[in-house]
Structure formats: C-alpha cells, structure tokens
C-alpha cells in the first residue's frame, strides 16, 4: 500500500474511486479484456486499496486502448479509463523519461483528433 502513489493517481485522474459499486460493467464492456492481466474494474478496486505498484508493473496499463467505452457506460460515472491512464502516467514518470518530443507535435495534429488521444499515444509508443 502506497498512499502517496494512490493520492497521485487519484489526483491526476480526477476520479473518485469510492463511487464504484462494483458492478463490473466496465470490464463487461472492455474490448481489450482478454489482453489485460488486470481488468478495468480491478484497476478501480486496486487503486482504492492503494495497490498501485502491482498495476504499474503490469503490462495491462499498455493494453488499454483508451477507447473510453468504460467511461461512457459506467453507471456511476467512475471513469475507469482515466484511472488506467493515471497509473500509466505514474509508471512513465517513474521511469524518468520524457517521451514528448515537442518538434513532432505539429505534424501529428489533426483537427478531429482528441487531444487526449495524442498525449496517450505519445506516452504509449514513443520509446
């Protein structure tokens, strides 16, 4: 249990994990479910318990497609994808690497592309 990490994840995701009623709709809806060792509902639960390190070590954080299906369908407005993203961020920060190369940004920009998708893509693939 790492309270600092937990706080960091909760703060950077903006998610209130206590709102989760453990229905599992996020995992029921997840297209990457079988690829993931820990599933969306487990992310929420484990963050609540403060077990962030296990998640950070898991490949699961790179398997999430950030498709936001879980965010869209969660009946409690918990937004699991944002938790996954926050854990991913925590892992990347820890590596001390800055994957954002400012010079590459303009080419990547596209009016229809959500900004979060660009940022996520950078974090995931530029290494």
């Amino acid at each position, binding site marked *: 249990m790492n309270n600092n990490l937990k706080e960091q994840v909760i703060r950077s995701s903006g998610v209130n994990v206590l*709102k989760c*009623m*453990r*229905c*599992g*709709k*996020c*995992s*029921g*809806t*997840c297209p990457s*479910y*079988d690829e993931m060792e820990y*599933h969306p*509902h*487990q992310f929420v639960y484990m963050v609540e318990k403060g077990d962030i390190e296990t998640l950070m070590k898991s490949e699961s954080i790179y398997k999430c497609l950030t498709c936001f*299906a879980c965010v869209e*369908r*969660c*009946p*409690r*407005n918990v937004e699991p994808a944002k938790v996954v993203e926050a854990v991913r961020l925590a892992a990347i920060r820890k590596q001390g690497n800055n994957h954002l190369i400012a010079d590459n940004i303009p080419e990547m920009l596209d009016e229809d592309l959500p900004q979060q998708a660009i940022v996520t893509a950078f974090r995931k693939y530029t290494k």
Partner: protein
Amino acid sequence: MQRIGVFVCHCGTNIAATVDVKAVAEALSHEPGVVISQEYQYMCSEAGQNLVKDAIKEYGLTGVVVCSCSPRMHENTFRKAASSAGLNPYLVEIANIREQCSWIHKDIATATEKAVILGKAAIAKVHLNTPLTAGESPVAKRALVIGGGIAGIQTALDIAEAGFEVDIVEKEATIGGKMAQIDKTFPTLDCAACILTPKMVEASQNEKITIHSYSEVSAVKGFVGNFTATIKKKKRFVDETKCTGCGLCTEACPMKKVPNAFNLGLDNRSAIYIPFAQAVPKVATIDPNYCLKLRKGDVNDKVCGKCAEACTVGAINYHQQDEYIEQKYGAIVVATGFNPIKLDKYDEFAYNQCPDVVTSLELERLMNAAGPNGGTLLRPSDKTHPHKIVFVQCVGSRCDDSKGKPYCSKICCMYTAKHAMLIREKYPDTEVYVFYIDVRTPGKNFDEFYRRAVEQYNVHYIKGMVGKVTPKADGTIDVQASDLLSNEQLHIDADMVVLATAIEPDKTARPLATMLTTQMDTNDFFTEAHAKLRPVESATAGIFLSGACQGPKDIPETVAQASAAASKAIGLLVKDSITCNPCVAHSNELMCNGCSACEKVCPYGAITYQDKEFRMPDRTTAIRRVAGVNPAVCQGCGACTVACPSGAMDLNGFSNSQIMAEVDAICK
C-alpha cells in the same frame, strides 16, 4: 391590568433538590402583574391543578405561569385545568425548570438564579398572550383517489367499506394499472389477474365507489376537509352509460393496425378498443389518432362509421366533448404509481435496434395467456422459441449519471427470479442467465424464493454487469459481460435479452404535486410527512400517499400502504369537523405589501391574496393586494413571519413581541 398567577412545582425532589423553589416563588412574586406566587409538591397532581383553578377564580387571573417540567410534558394538562376554571387555555405559559434547569445543573445558587430568569421570561411572554380559540372547519364526507391501480383500488375499497363515498380518477380507459399487465406474482407465483380482477369488479360494483376512467384531475383548490377538485372526463366518443362492452364495434372496426398499448405495442388492436377482456369499466374507447373518421377532422363526413353501425345500443357518439365535473372532497389519496423508464439513452443494450431485447414488463406480456402469443414465450422477431435467455439487472437503477436513476428500483431482483423460474419451469430446455450486481431480497419468503431459482431451477446467476449487447446476422444476440467472480469476460449467444428496467414515478405526478401543494423529492417521488412516523401522509394535511408514487414498492407493500392511507383518510372523514391549531399565522392587512414573499415560503399553500379597498391616509381609497392566511391550512411554522419584510405577518402564540419580550427578560 394583568393579573398573573405563578405556580412553582417541586416535582417531589426532582426540581426542589437543585432549585430553591421557595426562593423562586418569592422572586417571581415581585414581577410586574404577578398577584399570586405559590409553590407546591406536585403541580400536575389533582390537588396541584386545583390550586391553579382556585387561584384563577379567586384572583381573577388573566394569565398563568407554571414553573415545572417541560411544556412537552404537561402544557396540555395545565391548559385544560385553566380552561375548566374559565381561563382561556392559551393564557398559560410553562417555564421549564426541570429538564432544562434542575436536572442539568448541580449548584443550587446558579440553578435557582436560572430558574428565576426562566420564570421571568415566561411572565414577560404571558403578559402579551392573547386568548386564542381553536377554529373548526367542516369535513366533506367524500374521498378522491387519484390513480386506479392496485394501490388506488385497495384504498378506495377500504374507504368505501367504512361507509364513505369515494371517487377513483384513472387516466387510462380501465382501472387495474400495472398489476393488470403482470402475468404472475412473487413469491407465490399465483396469477396476477386472478387476484386483481375480482378487486376491480368489487370496486365497480360497490355503490360507494364512482370510477372516472379515461379522466384526469385538472385542478384542486381548498384545504383539508374541504378540497374542491375538477375532474376532466376526456372524450372517449362512446356513451359510458349505454355501452355494454359487447365488443361488436371492435370487430367491426376496419382499422386493426393500432399498436396495442396494453400489450406494450407487442401486437395490434383496433382503433375502437376495450383494453383487455376484464377491463373495468368494460366500455369501448375510440383512439382519435387512428380512427378513420375522427382522424379526418370532419366527423360529419361520410367516412367509415362501421362501429356506429355495429353498435346495437347506439353508444357511439363521434361528437362527444370533454366533460368537467366539480366535486368537494374531505381527503385526497394520491396513487399515481410508476412506469419503466425510457431506454433510449442505453445504446449498449440495443433495446431500440433489436426486437428480441425486451423490458421485464414486456416479458410479462409475452408470457401472459392474454398476451400477444397466447402465453407461449416466443421471440418477438421471428416467433421462435428462445433457448438461451439473458437477464440484465439494474438497467438504469443505481446510476449516478444523467441516463438513469440514483435509487434501487427494489422490485427487479424478485421479478427477475420469478421470470427465470417460470421460464425454467415451463421450458426446461431453455438456459437462463442472470447478470446481477447484488441480489437484494429482503422480505418474507423472498430470499428463499431466489435460492429456489438457483438451487431448484438451476438458473445461472453471474455476478457482473453486461457491457454490450450486439444483435448478430444469424438472429442471435451476442451478450458481452464480465464475470467478476471467475474474473473473465463472457460472450453469450442469447436468443433473448430481458432488461430489468428502472422504474420512475408517473409523469403526471409532478403537475399534480404542484396542484396539491405537496412536496416531492428530486426523483419526483412524493415526500411523506415523516420518513419514519408518518409514512402514508403527505406534509399537506388531508393528502395521503398510496403505493409507488411515494417510492418503489412491490404489490404486498403497495397494498399495505394503500390500506394504511385509507385508514388515515377514514380517520379524517369520520370527523364532522376538524379542530384547527390556533397558533397560526395572521396577516395585518394594513401593513401588508402584497409582495408574495410569504406565499413563496409557505409549505402548505395556506396563504392567498386578494385585492381589497383601503382608505389611505390622504383620504383617498386605493385597491391594495393583501395576504390572507387560511387558519385551517396553516400549521404555524412561522416561515412567513420572517420572510415578510414589513412585519405584517405574525404568529399567534409566538408573536414577534412575545419572543422579543422573552429575549429581553432573559438578557435583562
């Protein structure tokens, strides 16, 4: 000049042990207006009361202050005593020197000092007390029940049983409500129609009950015991008094492609219709949106008219108009019930895309012998027998988003267990899956019932929620869900999906609440007067709540509440008149600005305005809008007195000057 008597009670040693009662009586005897100050062992005893009564007579008292226990304890005792001695009961004040003095303090000197101050405050107040008379207001011996479902029917039957006239107003063409659409009931699995329809018939045959079907309440005025409601009988184009319900017209009607609302659009009916075989009243109704003649707009046109030709009693009247009835009622019972929510926002369940994804209420009709398939469970799309059925719980319930409802709909766990069991019983070759978040079964024989579904009928209960429902080309439905306990994601090829849809209060409830000045919560459920102790009364006197309009309920709970509401209504109707609380607000018309601030904060709708002519200081006359308080409706909270900027509103028994006098006496 005031002549005030002070009576200090020892309460045995309860008061006397910590408060020097003699000193209190002595100190208070010097207060202005006090003509006698006595102490006694037990003021509330008969001898003590006689002391008060005798003093009232002997000294011609104009006010009485009793320094004793809490007014919540014996205020009434001393008021009655005063009354029997010829003093207006509202000229008695209590100084609480037991609960709020002797029992909480240990030091005799300071406790005595405080007791004297409390006594002085009571004396200061009683100086300003005015005699009050509790008004009486007559009670109209008739009840109005709004809504003709099982809740409304039960309430009406119970009130009629007690000998009072009852009117049921039902917006649909028949009474019966949701229960009439239900196939079987849990946890006994007896048929809903078999237990409901006899009650419907009983209601229609009871001389004390008048059923206004296809009607709405369009206005309510008045207050407890004296409501006036306007009932709008919508035009049904059939003379109710002539129609025999033979059904010849429905056969003759050429327009047969009307979605059958009673079967939730799962099959069709004719434009002139009787909702179902046991409808009460069994009277035909023409749907003007589909009737070939009425749809044209000109009824004198020679279009169709087949139903009128077929009718042997001449009941069809294409010229019928809405009719308005005005009636006086003593009590009103709201029983407006519930509806499943619309599922338009839940794309993931494919409800709008796939006919084989149905709501639980639709499943009831699909399984019902009087339903579209005559009781055989068939898929709506291709009328084949489903072999794999998935039930999804909590669809729209327990949601914290904009799509659903934040509450638990309460009935879904049990009816889903019922559905699962009935299907497994009738079609053992059908596999049944139930995806649940929690199974909630508090209630007599409820958990046993659910366990039977699992243990005896082998229904697959899976903890987890369905994430996505996708209709496939081969006619099956892919149900993607998580199984939280085995930690895997499942794909089930289902033939049918049943959604346990959240329930919400009927849409007519909110405008009705405004009309009745009753309160509602944010979900549009009516709020009861007290969550624990007055669960079937609304906060507005004379308005009672029955059934699911107050919160999600199953049938036994609904019936229990219906009877409880009936007994509360009867308790009101048996009285010839009601005594009003005289400690009510009143408006000083000379100071009233007519600004409506008081009206806006009144929880009871007790304040109304009228234009009155006044002579102005400059000798002209002017019409001014002034507030008036209906003392029979006002409950005396005093919210208006503070909202009023000019101080025109004041409260009997707790007037501005009385409270100020108490403040002054305490702070002196």
